């Protein structure tokens, strides 16, 4: 297995080196090496999952403070496997996408480094290796977010937000992990876990909260999510797929690592906090996804939403553990992992599709798109599969996850503990809300972008994605279908990944049975029933048509409101489709509405033009971050008085500092 690790690392390093080549072959070469590297990592992960034993390898003289230490546990292997699958698809996709963007040397090398670091983070066996890989991941993805800075000033702003959030998060994580390592007198995770029993409650909670803040910011948890819609939207297609499909997961991995593995005896309130964060994140993410106009921003908010659901499951698991319901705890943890794997599959499908749309039209604004299903048939089909999966429609994989989440939340209600019952009830309510909003968001995403008629020249001039891009999208979409139809593919792998942490008793190939708890699900049967119902409706319609002899049935465009002669302007737009949601949640979202009516000069009864604008800037950004930034800026302006440009004054500061130090050190 050491060879597989060597293959992963060497091929990854080769990909970085080839990415930096000045030759034109850099993208295919680098992508090939990345596929090899990811395949190596995936094989390694599969072996660890199959045997259920850890794989360990270490090299003490590479890094200071404990050295490079690889320790691949089944849980880590699960994350490596997911990252590798998304990475393979993204790399293949990249070869085609590079014609459009992201073909430069710095972008190519950073992409390779980003992919490699995503594979290495879950393999880390000690604090040093973990933080090293984590930081590489943060920095390389930062370069990729800013890669288009020359043409798009927005990407600089996005990169700045991302840089601050990710480095702040990394700082919090470093504090927590280094603190734990100092307490255990070892940087190894296994030593930290055994030493944690001697940790006092307050200290452990402090470390946990720091780690939670850091990892939650990576996972896009409200209120630390503000970077996510910006960075995911600005990053190029394959990078946003990797960020959303693999990087965000590692935030969850970190929370499990610290909360369950390193500090297993956490008090109940930790998991109440996690549940609360999860519920809020899911609701906020779904709400903004439902009202976004920008296709990639919508997907990014939906990522927040899904991570919120994962945290809900994690929180339910921790709560059930603390109330002595190990079966429910195991089920909920497995649910969290199933949700996470699902999300990686369908969200990377969707982001690759959105990248293809952006490459073909040069726009992410749905109000400028439309009618792409005729011009980009395969992309629209894969996007539809992804959209159905994220909306939890059977027989796609999202449905299994959602069902499991409902099962574990409802079973956790059987507890006698008041806190967990209240949390569970709220969680079920939050899920119901987000489920509905998610469907609205993705009906909009698919309907406005791919159906109807093209709204602008850009949309009309679109063309299908290149072969390699279609291959990557198609493969991921097929994975969504396969894991949905045969849920055991998903649940079985997850159960193996949790070996040693939890033992969810889920069995069955096509039918999932929750032995020990009541519950069974056959997605295939459900979808058969669904198809049957559809066939029934269609047959009935034909029958009615025949009997009443509708001679001339006009077939018009879908979403065309049944009109013959309509202009593209008469269709629903993303703005108008999201408007009711914006109105219903007016008090929460506080949109800036701007209605601009201009009259014809002759008469005030005739309108010349009405312009409606509603900006739904993130309410947390507006009311939490903006004031904080303004405060900081005001403070900085005040401090500027100290720096008036006089050399003597600066020298005097130096002398004063020196004198103060001498006096103190005396």
């Amino acid at each position, binding site marked *: 297995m050491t060879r597989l690790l060597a293959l992963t690392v060497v091929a990854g390093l080769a990909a970085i080196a080839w990415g930096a080549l000045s030759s034109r072959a850099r993208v295919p070469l680098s992508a090939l090496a990345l596929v090899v590297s990811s395949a190596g990592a995936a094989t390694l992960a599969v072996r660890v999952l199959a045997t259920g034993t850890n794989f360990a390898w270490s090299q003490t003289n590479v890094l200071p403070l404990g050295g490079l230490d690889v320790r691949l546990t089944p849980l880590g292997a699960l994350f490596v496997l997911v990252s590798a699958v998304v990475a393979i698809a993204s790399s293949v996709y990249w070869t085609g996408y590079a014609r459009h963007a992201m073909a430069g040397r710095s972008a190519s090398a950073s992409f390779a480094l980003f992919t490699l670091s995503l594979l290495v983070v879950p393999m880390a066996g000690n604090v040093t290796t973990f933080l090293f890989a984590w930081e590489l991941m943060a920095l390389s993805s930062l370069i990729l977010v800013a890669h288009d800075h020359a043409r798009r000033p927005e990407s600089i702003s996005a990169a700045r937000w991302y840089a601050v959030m990710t480095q702040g998060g990394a700082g919090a994580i470093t504090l927590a992990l280094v603190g734990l390592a100092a307490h255990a007198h070892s940087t190894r995770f296994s030593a930290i876990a055994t030493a944690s029993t001697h940790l006092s409650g307050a200290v452990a909670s402090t470390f946990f909260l720091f780690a939670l803040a850091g990892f939650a910011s990576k996972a896009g948890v409200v209120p630390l999510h503000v970077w996510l819609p910006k960075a995911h939207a600005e990053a190029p297609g394959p990078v946003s797929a990797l960020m959303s499909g693999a990087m965000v997961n590692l935030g969850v991995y970190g929370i499990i690592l610290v909360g369950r593995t390193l500090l297993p005896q956490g008090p109940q309130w930790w998991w109440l906090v996690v549940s609360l964060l999860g519920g809020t994140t899911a609701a906020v993410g779904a709400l903004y996804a439902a009202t976004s106009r920008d296709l990639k921003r919508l997907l990014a908010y939906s990522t927040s939403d899904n991570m919120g659901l994962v945290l809900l499951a994690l929180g339910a698991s921790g709560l059930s553990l603390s109330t002595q319901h190990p079966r429910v705890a195991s089920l909920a943890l497995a649910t969290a992992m199933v949700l996470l794997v699902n999300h990686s599959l369908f969200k990377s499908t969707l982001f690759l599709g959105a990248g293809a749309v952006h490459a073909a039209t040069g726009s992410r604004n749905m109000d400028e798109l439309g009618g792409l299903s005729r011009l980009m048939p395969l992309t629209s089909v894969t996007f539809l599969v992804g959209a159905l999966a994220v909306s939890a429609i059977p027989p796609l994989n999202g449905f299994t996850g959602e069902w499991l989440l409902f099962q574990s939340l409802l079973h956790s209600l059987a507890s006698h503990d008041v806190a967990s019952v209240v949390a569970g009830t709220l969680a079920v309510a939050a899920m119901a809300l987000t489920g509905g909003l998610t469907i609205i968001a993705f009906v909009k995403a698919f309907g406005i972008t791919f159906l109807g008629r093209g709204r602008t020249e850009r949309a009309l001039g679109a063309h299908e994605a290149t072969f390699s891009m279609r291959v990557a999208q198609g493969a991921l979409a097929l994975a969504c279908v396969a894991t949905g139809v045969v849920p055991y593919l998903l649940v079985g792998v997850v159960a193996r990944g949790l070996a040693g942490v939890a033992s969810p008793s889920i069995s069955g190939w096509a039918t999932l049975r929750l032995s020990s708890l009541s519950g069974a699900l056959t997605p295939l049967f459900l979808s058969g029933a669904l198809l049957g119902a559809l066939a029934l409706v269609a047959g009935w319609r034909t029958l009615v048509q025949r009997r009443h002899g509708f001679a001339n049935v006009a077939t018009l465009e879908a979403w065309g409101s049944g009109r013959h002669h309509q202009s593209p302007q008469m269709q629903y737009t993303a703005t108008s489709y999201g408007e009711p949601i914006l109105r219903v949640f007016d008090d929460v979202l506080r949109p800036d509405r701007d209605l601009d009516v201009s009259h014809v000069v002759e008469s005030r009864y005739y309108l010349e033009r009405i312009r409606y604008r509603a900006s739904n800037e993130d309410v947390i950004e507006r009311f939490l971050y903006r004031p904080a930034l303004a405060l900081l800026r005001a403070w900085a302006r005040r401090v500027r008085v100290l720096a*008036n*440009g006089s*050399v*003597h004054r600066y*020298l005097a500061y130096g*002398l004063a500092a020196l004198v103060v130090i*001498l006096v103190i050190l005396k």
Partner: protein
Amino acid sequence: MKVSYVTPLDLAVVVVIVTAALTLWRQSLVASLRALSLQGVGLGVVAMVLGAHRRDPVLVFVGVLVLLIKGAAIPRLISRVVARDHPGREGSPLINIPASLVGAGLLTLLAFGATRGLVALIATPAARLIPFGVATTLIGFFAMVVRRRAVSQIVGLLTIDNGIALTAFLATSGVPLVVELGVSLDVLLAVAVLRVLAGHLHRQFNIQDLDQLRDLHD
């Protein structure tokens, strides 16, 4: 034997600190340059005496080198600037002369107070003199703060450097040749750059006082 080593060392160190005070006292740029030159010579002598005492030919060589660079080469470089561009006097310093001498005295007291622990730690006759090294550094820094002329600033910087070198000679058993060589050459380079810069400032903007640089701010 002991007297023959301590007395010249004391004398040389006193030369260094007194010349540091002199640069603060005299307003004439030529006079402060002369003091700086003397300071370099004193520093060189300190190194040579220590080297002779420890029978360390390398340290003696370092002393000769210091004497040549800091005692002769650097002051000469600066004096050319003074001769060419500048009138020979420092205008009015930011703090008047008596007050700045009092400040220098206070800084010397601080140096003695702050290095008590260090002196107690190293029990050699040379280490007793460490406070003078620190005091020289502080006085140099102080001179940079209160003086307006670019040339005076350079002199202050060099005094800081001399103070650090003096502390290093007294506290350690000899600075390695490579280190001392590196530091001295760095300072020489810095002075060459500053000289050019000061000349340019004078010719381009007719600036002699660094305070006038504030007009370039914003």
